[in-house]
């Protein structure tokens, strides 16, 4: 049965408010400047800048459920502002508003000897508050750049963000539940759900060892503020190093379970072929001979300056900059090539907020002469993993960390 809590609304929205570094949108854009190259053709005349309540103009890929990505210029700052942070939902029945006095977080499951419920005040006052800076990146970030293209939300470069998350350790919450030693996974559910009761609700699990990791938290705050509604108010899971699929928004239940969770979103979705990617942290209780759940992020970079097609005068120095990140090992170095990929130079690394955070970097050079110059950045992490030259194709378009050139014009 259709259960349309969220009703389609009429005309509205805004257009030409400034996004830093973006030109005003022309009336009939052939390829809007906020969209990168390499996306499916249909995206260029469909994706628009649009603002959800409480958000700045982001790149709208779908209205319902809302999937909005952060335009690249925002990543010039290593911390992504709350109102610029990307929005990703699978299913369209999203609570309009969470009634905080009535909100409860239920902790239970057959692995919990003492099930209980928590209010927001319990979470704020009953547990040590901890803080961590970490990248939240959708598993499918850059899916739209897959070659060949694969179906799904056609994300460009901005289905990610880096924030300071504050909340309570999941292990402290679980400790109160009297965990049984046969617990293998912890199952997470949020208040959002499907529009028809035949659609599998978005429910995820993580292995118990990851649930008990000091860095895995139930976040109540983001960059010093309550979580924005569309980023999971009032509480979301934060699993530093792992892709966003586990960062359950609008948390309502945490279940410790003695058997691997069998839901669609674990068994069929968010899986990668075995052995294709350099994964260290594996989710063994969900692994089959052919596929395994996506877990940690692969090492990657985004160049935020210069921008594609930017013009420089001959003899003028060019500042190259961006951010790199990985699955939580930390960035060891970032190399920049300004001559195709003949020679590589080490970039200067910027502030190190945590091994889970965006690591900014910069490099200055003066192009040898007029013409087109191709700039490439490539990050390597502290366990020696690096970005790939060629896409590791997989049917869901995950883990795209192909090095990505920026071409500038010197005249």
């Amino acid at each position, binding site marked *: 049965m*259709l259960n349309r809590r*969220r009703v*389609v*609304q*009429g*005309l*509205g*929205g*805004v*257009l*030409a408010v400034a996004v830093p570094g973006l030109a*005003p949108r022309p009336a009939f854009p052939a390829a809007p400047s906020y969209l990168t190259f390499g996306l*499916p*053709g*249909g*995206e260029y*005349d*469909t*994706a628009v800048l*649009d*603002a*959800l*309540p409480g958000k700045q103009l982001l790149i*709208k*890929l*779908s*209205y*319902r*459920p809302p999937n909005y990505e952060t335009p690249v210029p925002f990543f010039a700052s290593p911390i992504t502002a709350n109102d610029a942070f990307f929005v990703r939902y699978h299913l*369209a029945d999203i609570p309009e508003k969470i009634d905080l006095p009535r909100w409860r977080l239920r902790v239970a499951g057959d692995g919990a000897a003492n099930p209980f419920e928590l209010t927001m005040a319990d979470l704020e006052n009953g547990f040590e508050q901890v803080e961590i800076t970490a990248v939240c990146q959708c598993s499918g970030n850059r899916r*739209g750049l897959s070659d*060949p*293209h694969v*179906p*799904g*939300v*056609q994300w460009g470069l901005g289905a990610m963000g880096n924030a300071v998350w504050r909340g309570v350790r999941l292990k402290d919450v679980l400790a109160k539940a009297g965990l049984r030693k046969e617990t293998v996974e912890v199952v997470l559910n949020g208040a959002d759900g*499907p*529009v*028809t*009761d*035949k*659609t*599998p609700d978005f429910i995820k699990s993580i292995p118990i060892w990851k649930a008990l990791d000091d860095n895995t938290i139930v976040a109540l705050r983001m960059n010093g503020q309550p979580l924005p509604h569309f980023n999971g108010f009032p509480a979301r899971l934060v699993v530093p190093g792992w892709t966003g699929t586990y960062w359950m928004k609008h948390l309502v239940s945490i279940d410790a379970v003695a058997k691997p969770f069998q839901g*669609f979103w674990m068994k*069929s979705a968010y899986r990668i072929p075995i052995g294709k990617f350099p994964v260290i942290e594996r989710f063994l209780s969900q692994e089959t001979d052919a596929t395994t759940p996506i877990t940690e992020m692969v090492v990657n970079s985004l160049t935020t300056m210069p921008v594609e097609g930017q013009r420089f005068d001959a003899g003028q120095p060019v500042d190259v900059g961006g951010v790199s990140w990985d699955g939580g090992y930390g960035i060891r170095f970032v190399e920049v090539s300004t001559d195709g990929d003949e020679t590589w130079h080490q970039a200067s690394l910027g502030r190190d907020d945590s091994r889970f955070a965006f690591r900014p970097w910069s490099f200055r050079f003066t192009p040898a002469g007029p013409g087109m110059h191709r700039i490439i950045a490539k990050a390597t992490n502290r366990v020696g993993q690096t970005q790939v030259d060629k896409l590791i194709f997989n049917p869901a378009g995950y883990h795209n960390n192909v090095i990505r050139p920026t071409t500038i014009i010197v005249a």
Partner: protein
Amino acid sequence: MMLMAAASARAEQPVSLKEAPGRPAVEENCAACHSLDYLRTNSPFLDRKGWQAEVTKMISVFGAPVAPEAAKMIVDYLSANYGIGG
């Protein structure tokens, strides 16, 4: 700088699809669970088999209540208007 009407609480705007036979079946069925921009951004790179697989997934995995004759119209429409290679 130009702008449209006053902002509403949530600004889902109509997403138009190409006028062709089968469009009403697409609008009536697909839009019940998601906005139609999904179809446009996922184009044009799926062939008929690809669109068939997507429609089948919506019905058998996500439980979309789509009648078989409507499903065929939807696949025909998407293959012809948002697909490649017929």
